[in-house]
């Protein structure tokens, strides 16, 4: 499997988990197509709340995927960014009476700043260490939030900042209306998707994929691997922070759980089930996991047993995830023609 002396060996062999890049024509349209697909969601799912959750967790997984799927860094601490985004949005609105949009913006900036700090510490540790260090640092953030209960509400979570209308100057959105709320969240998710698509298509996007494929080679080509990784980490934290901010607006409460290990794991599960390293895969993963939860929790309180088992089966037999495997099949078909 692996020896203690692997320092001499250049880079560990990585099993490619990425999607084939053959669908070039589609990649230019991936953001608009994704947004179109998400527009249909509230009419396909049994409840609007579920649809909003798919958007929020989908964005969370997409942000996570930027780091895991595209850069190849397996983090287990992204709850720190999701939770920071959520808590600071709630605190900004509740304690300081800020405009929701301003509170969200500040929360996203703070989540990115935290990502800069956590990234700086954790990127020094490589490979398998990285997962452990990010996990432990996220625990640090969790315990800080637990102790700072005068700001965060401690174990009870943050309450008392209900947002019912969002004043946009010209119009005032009543987000108690489920469809308005969905479109409000979708506006942010859509903008984020367009931005991520642009980032992935940029030279930076090519470099992070090069680092995932062969770090030593990317370094030899003259790329500043550490700084590129750090930038990918911060961008990932930014989008995860945004998803947290949206979840605070959506739920009007921030549970302490949003900073917990469990939430970090959710990003991993959704990304892997959907398809790491694919553009739309994380949404497929979020949809699958949330629908699975929605259906199974009607039957049994132990639905996580099924979730864990399904996840294990994916790791064993379908490591490219649902969307990744489907894309792979599609490319193979096109290749045969």
């Amino acid at each position, binding site marked *: 499997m692996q020896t203690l002396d692997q320092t001499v060996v250049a880079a560990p062999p990585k099993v490619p988990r990425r999607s084939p890049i053959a669908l070039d024509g589609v990649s230019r349209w991936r953001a608009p197509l994704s947004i179109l697909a998400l527009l249909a969601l509230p009419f396909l799912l049994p409840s609007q709340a579920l649809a909003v959750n798919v958007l929020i967790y989908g964005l969370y997984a997409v942000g996570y995927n930027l780091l895991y799927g595209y850069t190849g860094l397996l983090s287990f601490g992204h709850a720190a960014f999701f939770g920071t985004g959520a808590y600071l949005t709630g605190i900004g609105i509740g304690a300081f009476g800020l405009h929701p949009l301003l509170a969200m913006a500040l929360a996203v900036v703070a989540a990115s700043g935290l990502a800069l700090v956590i990234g700086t510490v*954790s990127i020094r540790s490589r490979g398998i260490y990285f*997962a452990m260090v990010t*996990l432990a640092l996220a625990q640090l953030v969790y315990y800080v939030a637990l102790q700072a209960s005068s700001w965060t509400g401690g174990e009870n979570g943050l309450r008392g900042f209900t947002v019912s209308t969002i004043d946009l100057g010209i119009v005032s959105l009543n987000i108690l209306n489920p469809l308005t709320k969905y479109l409000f969240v979708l506006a942010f998710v859509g903008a984020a998707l367009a931005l991520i698509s642009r980032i992935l298509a940029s030279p930076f996007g090519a470099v992070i994929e090069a680092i995932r494929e062969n770090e030593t080679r990317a370094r030899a080509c003259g790329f500043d691997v550490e700084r590129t990784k750090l930038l990918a980490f911060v961008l990932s934290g930014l989008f995860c922070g945004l998803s947290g901010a949206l979840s605070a607006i959506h739920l009007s409460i921030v549970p302490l759980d949003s900073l917990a290990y469990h939430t970090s794991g959710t990003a*991993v599960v959704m990304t892997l089930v959907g398809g790491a390293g694919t553009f739309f895969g994380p949404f497929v993963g979020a949809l699958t996991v949330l629908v699975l939860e929605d259906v199974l929790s009607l039957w049994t309180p132990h639905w996580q047993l099924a979730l*864990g088992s399904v996840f*294990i089966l994916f790791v064993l037999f379908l490591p490219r995830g649902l969307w990744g495997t489907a894309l792979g099949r599609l490319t193979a078909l096109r290749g045969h023609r």
Partner: protein
Amino acid sequence: MDPGFLDLELIAMQLFSGVALGAVFVMLALGLSIIFGMLGIVNFAHGNVFMVGAYAGVFVMERTGSFWAALLFGPLMVGALGLLIERFLIRPLAGRSPDDPLLLTFGLGYVLVEGVRILFGSDGLPFATPEELSGVADLGIGFFPIYRLFVVGVVALVLVALWYGLERTRLGLIVRAGARDPEILRVLGVDIQRLWLWVFALGIALAALGGVLAAPMRSVNPEMGNVVLGEAFAVTVIGGMGSLMGSVVAGLLVGIVVSMTALFAPEMASIAMFAFMALVLLVRPQGLFGKPGLGV
């Protein structure tokens, strides 16, 4: 008595508490490090295995009424589970990215937590300190719970046994060779698959033993594993992954740091361990005893 002397006494007692707390961390970090050193995988279900160990202890104790039976058979049962996990879940992943077994054991964590919830219920269970080990002992500087002394003793025994097994026996020689170069060992005719199987089970059993030992000191509930996982990782990262010496030193050090912080600023106790880890990482990214670049 003058107050200065009292303070010293209090600090000495707290130091001892730290060692007892650290002893459990040592068991966790040892298991993680042994598995990593041999198989090159990080067991993300390690915290949950610790939790399952505590429940296995409860299970045996309910059946037999004996804490000693729980201490022996609890870890053995969980170790047997470890054999199955290695054989049927970890082994098929041979040759794939080191992330894959990590992800798999992470998923296994969900299964273990829910499995325990189904078998034992979601609420925490009490785990009484065994009668023959309850009470306090006079250490000269103050009174100290006998059970904590016992925990330190058991961990010390395990350490000596491990050291002897690894450094002084033929099997230990093979294990050390396997950690260094599995390919050569295979060429020499050693069945390395079987070695990995048993080493994995050993690491799992150590975590389970930690769980049984810790059970009377902290509440037993299905979620305890997730908390413990972060703690075990912090200790392992501080000590240096794959270093047994590092596991022991870091485990005790973290135990002492936590209990000392608890003395001066109780609300900072749970934060201290992770802050300590971040500090160590900034100075020595490979951990106190790790060789640079060991982590793949």
